[in-house]
């Protein structure tokens, strides 16, 4: 499959088209909107389903050393990518030290929604990836934040002090680890693993059959939210920052490709790791940073991650990463 076939198959799939519909609806100022409770429930469902399926696949397959390698490579990526991102931002934009660290944290961490969309696309493109990639995704959420707090440096430390509301790095890590979507992802993964194929059979209509349809509804919502976020806050994004939101995913994906090849991932898993590295968090990290780094302006990082990088990855990045992953692993043309 060449890259155009891949891109087309990705683009004219219902989930992506519903995302585009959401963007359009936002831009024509339609009042179409998904209630907050529903959006949250859809994301819980998707996280639960993806975790459970990953676990059930683990139970069906063999447990090999490559799992550990993949998880380790994810942690390294998450911990080191923020350094790169922070450097780029300080060099190429006028964003302040603290905001640069905050943005870098988002890009080192991962977007679980992008991962879910990539998993679906991977299945569609017939290179599904291994079940353990769910564990890799979970492992990549937190390390980036620690790095970012170190990068934020003295400014943050000073303000973390006084008045007794300061957060130690450990407590921030704890908070991230107890973040709802991570707990659910890991928990569902273990449940899928424990109950295996028999458990899966019992809940397959809910977790498998309707999955892609629910994803359509959810991506419609993400399109609406991304589009409205852009309309509302595009003024906070200077061109240099927008540029960062477009090339940083590519840098991340390439770094992911390198580490993924090093630990010997198959094409599907490699595509997923590249997507994870390329994606920017907008559930767990933004909330955690409001406590750990309250001086950072949330409008910049949220708008960038959700309004620029997420659509880019969804529409162009994912087919590109999977095409590259197939190419470098020598998977069928």
């Amino acid at each position, binding site marked *: 499959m060449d890259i155009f076939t891949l891109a087309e198959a990705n683009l004219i799939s219902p989930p992506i088209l519903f995302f585009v519909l959401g963007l359009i609806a936002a831009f024509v100022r339609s009042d179409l*909107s*998904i*209630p*907050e409770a529903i*959006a*949250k429930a859809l*994301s819980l469902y998707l996280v639960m389903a993806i975790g459970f399926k990953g676990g059930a696949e683990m139970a069906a397959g063999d447990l090999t050393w490559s799992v550990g390698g993949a998880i380790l490579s994810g942690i390294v990526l998450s911990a080191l990518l923020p350094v790169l991102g922070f450097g780029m931002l300080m060099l190429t934009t006028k964003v302040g030290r603290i905001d640069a660290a905050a943005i870098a944290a988002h890009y080192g961490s991962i977007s679980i*929604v992008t991962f879910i969309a990539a998993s679906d696309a991977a299945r569609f493109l017939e290179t599904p990836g291994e079940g353990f990639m769910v564990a890799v995704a979970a492992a990549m959420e937190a390390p980036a934040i620690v790095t970012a707090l170190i990068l934020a440096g003295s400014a943050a430390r000073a*303000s973390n002090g*006084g*008045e007794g*509301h300061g957060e130690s790095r450990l407590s921030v890590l704890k908070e991230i680890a107890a973040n709802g979507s991570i707990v659910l992802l890991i928990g569902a993964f273990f449940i899928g693993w424990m109950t295996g194929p028999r458990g899966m059979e019992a809940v397959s209509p809910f977790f498998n059959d309707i999955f892609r349809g629910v994803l359509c509804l959810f991506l419609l*919502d*993400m399109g*609406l*939210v991304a589009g*409205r976020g852009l309309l*509302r*806050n595009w003024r*906070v994004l200077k061109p240099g920052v927008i540029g960062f939101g477009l090339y940083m995913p590519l840098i991340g994906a390439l770094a992911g490709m390198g580490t993924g090849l090093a630990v010997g991932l198959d094409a599907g898993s490699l595509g997923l790791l590249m997507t994870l590295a390329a994606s920017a968090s*907008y*559930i767990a990290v*933004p*909330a*955690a*940073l*409001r*406590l750990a780094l*309250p*001086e950072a*302006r*949330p*409008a910049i990082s*949220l708008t960038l991650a959700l309004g620029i990088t997420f659509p880019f990855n969804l529409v162009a990045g994912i087919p590109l990463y999977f095409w590259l992953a197939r190419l470098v692993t020598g998977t069928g043309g």
Partner: protein
Amino acid sequence: MQTSLKKRLEIIIEMPAVPRLEGVLEKAGVKGWTVLPAKSGRGANGSWSREGQITNADRMMMVLAVIDPAMLDTVLERVYALLERQIGIVMVSDVQVVRAERF
């Protein structure tokens, strides 16, 4: 009906900081409060809305506490120390309540 003067403290604060605010109120000796959801808003940090949102980072809550006037200064100082670093505003006004001993 016998009423007595209390202070009504209203704090509009970003959601991730609410547990921290509750800790501050508790330590300051506030006996009760109620958290009300907000739906959208606008301020110096731009505008926000809850429609379709999945992150809690980008939302405000309103915390309402009726307290004794004698506590006002202490409470206000501690709340302000937190608010200084988080997004939000504080309002104080007068209210009359029945069952004064409960506040």
